[in-house]
């Protein structure tokens, strides 16, 4: 495997009074496509700049291939950066931009030509070698920046929101291309983004960051299906969150009395003892929507409500459903409070489901299996205020 592993431990970095990194530790494996994902100001770019050598951490260690690189200037590190605004040299042609690192090392002209041509071919820009950056489109500039960052044959490529300046279609395209380049060169990619869809689609692993901390590290599936905190659940994709107390356990199934909703069944794997206060997340696409009550099932959660906001987007429709008061004899149903609402996604892959079209103001039933709900946060102290724990 080419590339290097990168490890940071106990990194802290403050700018004035602002703590950009608060005790960040991460291990990135050789050849991995690793994403740092978080909202703006979460510290992801600072972390990237610390790895690149543009910022010195206040405390903590950065190691590349097991060797500490703290204090080493950027030109002495085996990593190269693709900048957010490309940072192409406006006075040099595309060819000379890509050749820049070779010119610094006084590589003979013949070799420069050969290597630049090979790297321009990698990003499919051979025919643009003579142009100035100002004559290129956004996507082309992006590719020049990638070719230039790769020509030193770094063992780690750092990408700082490289696609944020491109329009949505081109972004999709470039993302695939980046993934292919990663497969071809086989080095470690560290990719900073605030776009969860980008991170989910190309990463081997993702670190979700917020407020200068790493909240969770895992594969895209782990991050999406098993968020370990409310923030991660909310930040990655769309989600329905419930808060409540665990009132009973039957094997892996916990019965939660959710505020504003009523009883809720969750598969919890021992992480939610009776009396614990929990936050439960259910992805909108895990819910099913129907006009008639679903058949009774022991593990099923049912919610009754009125369609408040159908949002049609071609391949799917998202419904925002507001709970309506339960009729007599339906006390088992969740959704008794009119203040509660859920969002549900209905894919239009199989239009022949036989379900009549659901419209605005229709009364509907939402239901989902206990296995599709996850406990994202547990507070074992329960819902009691902290004072209650004070020793008497």
């Amino acid at each position, binding site marked *: 495997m080419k590339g290097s592993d990168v490890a940071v431990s106990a990194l802290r970095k403050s700018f004035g009074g602002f703590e950009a990194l608060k005790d960040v530790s991460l291990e990135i494996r050789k050849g991995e496509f690793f994403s740092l994902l978080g909202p703006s100001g979460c510290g992801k770019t600072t972390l990237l700049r610390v790895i*690149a050598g543009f910022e010195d951490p206040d405390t903590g260690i950065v190691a590349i291939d097991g060797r500490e690189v703290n204090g080493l200037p950027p030109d002495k590190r085996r990593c190269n950066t693709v900048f957010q605004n490309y940072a192409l*040299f406006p006075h040099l042609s595309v060819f000379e931009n890509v050749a820049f690192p070779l010119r610094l090392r006084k590589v003979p002209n013949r070799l420069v030509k050969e290597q630049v041509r090979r790297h321009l071919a990698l990003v499919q820009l051979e025919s643009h070698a003579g142009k*100035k950056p100002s004559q290129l489109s956004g996507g082309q500039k992006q590719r020049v920046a990638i070719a230039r960052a790769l020509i030193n044959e770094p063992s780690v490529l750092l990408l700082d929101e490289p696609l944020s300046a491109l329009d949505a279609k081109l972004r999709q395209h470039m993302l695939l291309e980046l993934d292919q380049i990663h497969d071809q060169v086989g080095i470690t990619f560290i990719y900073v983004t605030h776009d969860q869809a980008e991170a989910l689609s190309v990463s081997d692993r993702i670190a979700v960051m917020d407020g200068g901390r790493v909240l969770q590290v895992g594969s895209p599936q782990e991050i999406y299906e098993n968020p370990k905190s409310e923030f991660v659940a909310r930040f990655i994709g769309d989600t329905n969150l419930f808060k409540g107390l665990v009132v009973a356990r039957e094997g892996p199934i916990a019965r939660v009395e959710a505020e504003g909703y009523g009883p809720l069944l969750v598969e919890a794997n021992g992480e939610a003892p009776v009396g614990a206060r929990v936050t439960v997340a259910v992805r909108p696409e895990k819910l099913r929507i129907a006009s008639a009550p679903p058949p009774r099932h022991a593990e099923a959660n049912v919610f009754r409500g009125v369609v408040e906001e159908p949002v049609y987007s071609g391949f799917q429709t998202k419904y925002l459903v507001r709970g309506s008061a339960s009729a007599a004899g339906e006390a088992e149903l969740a959704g008794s409070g009119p203040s509660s609402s859920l969002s549900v996604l209905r894919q239009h892959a199989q239009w022949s489901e036989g379900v009549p079209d659901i419209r605005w103001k229709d009364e509907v039933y939402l239901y989902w299996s206990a296995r599709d709900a996850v406990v994202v946060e547990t507070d074992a102290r329960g819902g009691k205020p902290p004072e209650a724990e004070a020793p008497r």
Partner: protein
Amino acid sequence: MSAKRNYGALYAAPQGLWLLAFFAAPLAIIVAYSFMRKGLYGGVTGELSLDAYRALANPSLLAVAARTLAVSLAATALTLLIALPCGYHIARSRNQALRLFLVIVPFWTNFLVRIYAWIAILGNEGFLNDFLRALGVVADPVQFLYNQWAVVLVLVYMYLPYAILPLFSTIDKFDFTLLEAARDLGATKPQAMGRVLLPNIQGGVVTAVLFTFIPIFGAYAVPLLVGGKDSYMLGNIIADQVTKTRNWPLASAISMTVTALTGVAALAFLYRSRKPAPAPLEGQGGAS
């Protein structure tokens, strides 16, 4: 009569008349005088002649011209060396307004007063000599004034703001992430400055050079007040020819030559460092 009349000429008239009366006309007079013969008691006689231009070949005059060129080049180079880091610092600092203000403050004091201030500092009884004597570094005053070095020093001081301001404004527009990119790609700090910063602020450097070299080449007061007899520059020769020797045709001929030479030099410099014409846009949006 057309419905829409072009008033451009009318709007430009005040400026045009002003330039005609106070720039073109005096220049024409100087051109005319340079081709006339010197009057017996000053002034000119009406006959046309090339005497004044022939007199330019005078070796002592050529020596002054050579010295003027050397002093101007040295002072411009020094000014640039000081102004570049200065402009860079102001552009990168958080409090640009205060620093720019400090650069401009000297303009509040009259040009001549500032030259006399230097005399007060560098003179034999000046602050610097007093200070050195108080420290016991020297016993007798050091002759700082009335030589080439004093001229260059004061010229650099005088024209520094004219170099700092255009350099600052170009460096301020420079994208500093380019320096990070250069460092990231393996450039050392000096390499990043030389290969990325300098080529991208060329416009500011050109302006700074023109703003300092041209006035320094025609300097008059500075060499007169802080220079010695051996630091005379062309400006002083011209003044002497007008006021003392009263050879107006020669003064005019020297002026014309200086104007022509600086004009040609400035144009050549501008031409050499012009931006390459942008090539037509093609292959746009080729996201294939």
